[in-house]
C-alpha cells in the first residue's frame, strides 16, 4: 500500500513539474514580443541597455581553434572572436566573452545570459525557430581529400570508387542521395576515417571542407581536390528571438564592413595560418552577408 501511494505521489510531482516548465516556456513566448525594457525578467537586453551597461556579452567557443579558442596568455582568439571584438568596438562598448558549448548555445540565448552567440553557429531551419540569425559571415560545404597520386577533382571521378565518410555527417547523406553509384565506406569516428584513407582502404574521404583542409595541410601527400561541394551551410551570429534592434545593428554592421573587406582581413589574421595557401578565402568567407556560389 505504502509503495503504491509513493508511486502515485511521484507521478503527481512529475506532472506538476512538467506543467510548470511547459507553462514557463509558453509565458516566455507570449511576453517576448513586447518585452524590450526587460526588468530582470527572462528577457533579452535591448540595444540601449547594452550601450548603457557599457558591456556586450558574447558567447563563443573556447576550444575550437581557429574559430574560437584561448591563447596561451588566456585571451580569447579566433575568427569568431575577431568579429566579436569589431562588433563591440562599433557598438562603443567593451566585450565580455562567455565560454559556451555546442549543447548549450541556444539555452544561453533563450535565457538572456548572453546578448549574442558567435560560436560557429550553423544556420538551420530548426534553430531559426528558437533564435534569430543575423546575416552570415562564413560558409561551409563539403570537401573531398585524396592522395596526390590519384587526385579526385570532381565528384564524377568517384563513380565505382570507394569514398570514406563518417556516419551521421552531411557527407554521408549528400553522397547517398546525389551519387548512388559511389561506394561508401562508413566509420563511426573521425580518427578511423583518416587512418583508413592513409591505409588506402578508400580512394578519397569527404567531410566538412574546413576539417579536410586543415588535415591535408598537416599530411604530406594528400590534397583537397574538391574544396566546395554540395549544399552550402552558412554560419551566422544569433540573438534572442525578437531582439530586432540588436539584429538590425549586426546586419547593418556586416554590410558596412563589406566596404573594407573586413572578413577577408579576419581570414588573413586567424584562418590563413592554419589553412595556408591551399584554400582560397572565398571558399569560406562571406562578405556583406551575401553568399556567392
Amino acid at each position, binding site marked *: 500500500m505504502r509503495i503504491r501511494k509513493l508511486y502515485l505521489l511521484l507521478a503527481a510531482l512529475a506532472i506538476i513539474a512538467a506543467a510548470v*516548465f511547459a507553462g514557463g516556456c509558453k509565458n*516566455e513566448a507570449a511576453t517576448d514580443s513586447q518585452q524590450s525594457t526587460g526588468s530582470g525578467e527572462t528577457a533579452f537586453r535591448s540595444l540601449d541597455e547594452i550601450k548603457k551597461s557599457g558591456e556586450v556579452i558574447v558567447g563563443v567557443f573556447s576550444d575550437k581553434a581557429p574559430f574560437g*579558442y584561448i*591563447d596561451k596568455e588566456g585571451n580569447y582568439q579566433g575568427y569568431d572572436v575577431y568579429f566579436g571584438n569589431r562588433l563591440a568596438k562599433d557598438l562603443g562598448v567593451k566585450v565580455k566573452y562567455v565560454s*559556451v558549448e555546442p549543447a*548549450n548555445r541556444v539555452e544561453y540565448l533563450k535565457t*538572456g545570459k548572453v546578448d549574442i552567440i558567435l560560436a560557429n553557429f550553423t544556420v538551420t531551419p530548426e534553430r531559426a525557430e528558437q533564435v534569430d540569425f543575423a546575416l552570415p559571415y562564413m560558409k561551409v560545404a563539403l570537401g573531398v581529400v585524396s592522395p596526390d597520386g590519384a587526385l579526385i577533382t570532381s565528384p564524377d571521378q568517384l563513380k565505382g570508387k570507394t569514398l570514406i565518410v563518417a556516419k551521421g555527417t552531411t557527407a554521408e547523406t549528400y553522397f547517398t542521395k546525389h551519387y548512388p553509384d559511389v561506394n561508401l565506406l562508413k566509420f563511426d569516428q573521425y580518427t578511423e576515417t583518416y587512418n583508413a584513407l592513409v591505409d588506402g582502404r578508400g580512394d578519397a574521404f569527404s567531410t566538412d571542407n574546413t576539417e579536410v583542409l586543415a588535415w591535408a595541410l*598537416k599530411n604530406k601527400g594528400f590534397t583537397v581536390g574538391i574544396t566546395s561541394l554540395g549544399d552550402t551551410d552558412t554560419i551566422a551570429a544569433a540573438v534572442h528571438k525578437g531582439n530586432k534592434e540588436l539584429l538590425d545593428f549586426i546586419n547593418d554592421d556586416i554590410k558596412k564592413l563589406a566596404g573594407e573587406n573586413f572578413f577577408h582581413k579576419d581570414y588573413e589574421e586567424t584562418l590563413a595560418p592554419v589553412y595556408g595557401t591551399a584554400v582560397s578565402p572565398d571558399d569560406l568567407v562571406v562578405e556583406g552577408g551575401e553568399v556567392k556560389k
Partner: protein
Amino acid sequence: MQDLGIRVLFEGENGIRLLLGLLVTIKLSVITIIASCILGTIMGMLMTLRHPAVHFITRIYLEFIRIMPQLVLLFIAYFGLTRAAGINLSGFTAAVIVFILWGTAEMGDLVRSALISIPRNQYESGAALGFSKIQLYRFIILPQALRRLIPPAMNLATRMIMTTSLVVLIGVVEMLKVGQQIIEANRYTAPTAALWIYGAIFFLYFFSCWPLTLAANCLEKRWKE
C-alpha cells in the same frame, strides 16, 4: 618531438590557468562536500524517525535526486530557474546548490543505513542507562555509525570531485575545460600536447582525491584499535 608536447604546459599563462582551474574544482568540492556531510547527517537521522510524513518527504527527495542525472539538475538550476521564475543565478552558485542537494540526498541515505545497522540493543541499553536522546546519539550511536560510514562516504566525496567536470556546461570553467582549451589552442602546432595535458590533469585529480583516501585509512586504522 617528445619535448614539444610538454613545453605547452609551461608556455605563457598555461600552467597558471590550469592551476586556477584546479582551484575552481577544489573550491566547489570542498564547499559542497562539507555542507553535504553536515546536512546529510541531519537528513539521515530524520530518515530513521518513523514519522510517516517525514518518511515520505525524505524518500521522494532522495528518489528525485537519484533519478535525475546531475547534468539535468545543473541545467534546471542554471537555465530552468531563469526561464521559469526569472531567477538569475551565477554558474558557480547554481553548481554549489545542485551539488549540495545531490550530496545531501546521497549522504543522508548512507547515514540512514549506517544508523539502522547499529543493533537495537545498543539503543535500548543506552536508554536503560538513563541517556537522553541527544546523549544517546552523541556518545553511543554516532561514534559507532561513523566507522561504518567512512568508506562509503569517501566514495561519495571522490565521486563528487570527479563530477565537478560537468559544471562547464553551465559556464563554470574548471580544470578539465582549461585543459581542453590548451590542447585545442595548440592542435596545429603541438599535436602531442594532449597526452601531456591530460597526464597533468590526471595527477592533479589524483592528488586532490588521494588525501581523502589517506585520511580515511588513517581513521579506520585508529578506530580499529
